[in-house]
């Protein structure tokens, strides 16, 4: 046992020193390897972190929302539905919600306008999110809006309704509040000429979590034009979307992965004359095929470990400390009010396993036959020169 360990140690020592000796040759491969790990890890970390944030955010959303459909499109819900739904067994409370989208033509941004009971006694006051406060009009210098500033709104008749900012939501909540504007009910109805007796949707609280699906089914039967939306369904859809996007990007990176594998194979087969001579000498002075194979294994392991940890570390920094700087153009899309957010850093073992299987496994498979071929150089080749 002791001998086996000493042997491993000796061969590992020699492998590391020969890698150092041939730094130049191995550097190109290491860089590409690290890059591949970095890209894949960034995608995995980002997707997982966004999934987590979505789940956290959704945790506070209502269990069940009831919308109304007319001709397949979302329509306003009559408030009288509240009574009939409240009578269903298992329903704890039903509340109407008033909210909508407001397009600010001056800045080109769309705000989510929502009625808050807290502002019921404060007509003319609004609470805004970080993105709204940073709004700017073309030709005007950017100056963040704060408490006391006035934001002009256009109401349904074409008139101007100035609303005073009462407060700005903290930066920590930007992922959810970036484009949010809370108003009082009176201002809301004036802005949109919202009919009385209607609501955007209804929020239903169900006492027993396991009965949610049953209640949703009952609501559908009671009001055939309604569409109950369960939070679990939303969660599931989000998960599916993030998974799918992650999968698509991995497929897109498959090209890079293939190029990397070919590079690794090419380098492993193209042993320089110097390397071949060295292995010949080792075989001649008493190293066995399995000793040389072990050396090749340690070589691959050292390169892989280095690239893996470096790539993962860089990806960690990239996603959690620079907010995925490199991916920003793809994530942002057409959004004008892009939230500034910091994701909670977390790495799961499962992600590392996926990374390992996508990078180290193909690398090892590509290099095993060339490694073996170089390890089986005959010991007498060095004599016959």
């Amino acid at each position, binding site marked *: 046992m002791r001998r086996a360990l000493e042997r491993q140690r000796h061969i590992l020592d020699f492998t590391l020193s020969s890698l150092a000796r041939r730094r130049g040759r191995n550097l190109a491969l290491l860089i590409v390897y690290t890059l591949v790990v970095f890209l894949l890890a960034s995608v995995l970390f980002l997707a997982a972190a966004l999934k987590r944030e979505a789940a956290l955010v959704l945790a506070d959303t209502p269990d069940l929302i009831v919308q109304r459909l007319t001709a397949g499109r979302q329509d306003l819900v009559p408030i009288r539905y509240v009574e009939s739904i409240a009578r269903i067994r298992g329903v704890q409370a039903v509340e109407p919600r008033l909210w909508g989208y407001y397009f600010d033509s001056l800045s080109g941004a769309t705000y989510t306008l929502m009625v808050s009971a807290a502002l019921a006694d404060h007509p003319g006051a609004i609470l805004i999110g970080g993105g709204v406060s940073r709004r700017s009009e073309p030709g005007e210098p950017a100056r963040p809006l704060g408490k006391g500033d006035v934001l002009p709104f256009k109401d349904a008749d074409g008139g101007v309704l100035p609303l005073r900012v009462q407060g700005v939501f903290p930066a920590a909540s930007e992922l959810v509040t970036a484009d949010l504007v809370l108003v009082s009910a009176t201002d809301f109805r004036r802005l949109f000429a919202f009919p009385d007796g209607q609501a955007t949707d209804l929020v239903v609280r169900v006492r027993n979590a396991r009965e949610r699906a049953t209640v949703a089914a009952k609501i559908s039967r009671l009001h055939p034009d309604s569409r109950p939306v369960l939070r679990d369904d939303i969660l599931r859809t989000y998960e599916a979307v993030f998974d799918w996007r992650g999968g*698509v990007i991995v*497929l897109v990176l498959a090209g890079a992965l293939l190029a990397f594998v070919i590079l690794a194979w090419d380098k492993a087969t193209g042993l320089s004359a110097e390397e071949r001579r060295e292995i010949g000498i080792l075989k001649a002075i008493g190293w066995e095929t399995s000793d040389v194979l072990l050396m090749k294994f340690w070589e691959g392991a050292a390169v892989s470990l280095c690239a893996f940890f470096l790539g993962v570390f860089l990806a960690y920094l990239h996603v959690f400390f620079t907010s995925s700087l490199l991916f920003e153009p793809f994530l942002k899309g057409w959004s004008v009010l892009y939230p500034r957010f910091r994701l909670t850093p977390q790495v799961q073992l*499962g992600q590392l396993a996926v990374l390992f299987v996508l990078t180290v496994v193909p690398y090892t498979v590509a290099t095993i036959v060339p490694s073996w071929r170089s390890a089986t150089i005959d010991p007498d080749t060095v004599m016959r020169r």
Partner: protein
Amino acid sequence: MMLQPGILALLLGSGLGAVLLAAAVVPAVRIIRRWDLASGSEEQLRLERQTYLVAAIMRLVMGFQIVFLFLFLQTVDGLAPMFIGAMCAAGSLKVNGFGYPALVAKILTCLLAGLWLILDATDNRASDYPLIRTKYRLLLVITPVLLAETALQALYLLGLEPNIITSCCAIVFSAGGGTVVATVLDVPLQLSRAAFVLSATLTLAAGWAVYRHGRGAILFATASACHFLLSIHALIAFISLYVYELPTHHCPFCLLHREYGGIGYPLYLLLLTLAVTGLGTGLLHRYRAVPSLRTVIPAMQRRLALIALAANAAFLLLVTGSMALSNLRL
């Protein structure tokens, strides 16, 4: 199909593993037919060189299979929220008919690969490669099993659709659940407990006999195999209850969750270890009459028995520990 990084990784990885092993079949067949150690011909030298490649491939495949098994459980468990009704891997695996067979095939390939490596290590210690043909015939058996496992896994993963309603582990693993697995729980609790304790004692005793006196290898192998199956039964029947502190939660997959300390991973790893080493001890017994292995095999068996005993002891320690520290009293 669901496009997800974990699924893509599993498909790629298993595919590569299958390709590697299939590539090893060609030299394997040549070696079975043409091996002749006494000849110094160039072909023989070539075959000898190829044995190194096949051994390296097998070691790689074994190592990968363990990683893939881990990744499979992680991915499948992580997919559970996508399927209505599933809360852990138990539900995800039930989404289509290939889930559980794929898992069983995976475990089987791990065991077979482990046995192959034991044969290889033994063969290399003798100076005339006495088990070479046996080894490569075993390889020809393992290859279709691995290919089947890759196919089953692919069929399972490619057939996953997110809106399928499946059952959660509470239903799959409950008495009267109408599944093969649920019949496990029709056995009365006391009987399960007694069988587990008996099997553990028998295996430990047999292992000690092999280690100390070099006798009873076949008994030990049989006892190990039974203990492997009985331990899985025990985990489902009563051990998991203590971990979850719930008298009705029997799921063997929720043990892998972080809220239970991921205790499932060391437990299953130890079970696999004791199965492979125990079965290996019995397998080697067949060849003890071969002249060049006369001293090699008893030494190998002793070493395997020691590892098996250690794994067994560690498993019992973990199990009794979680049962003792649990707030549940049955």
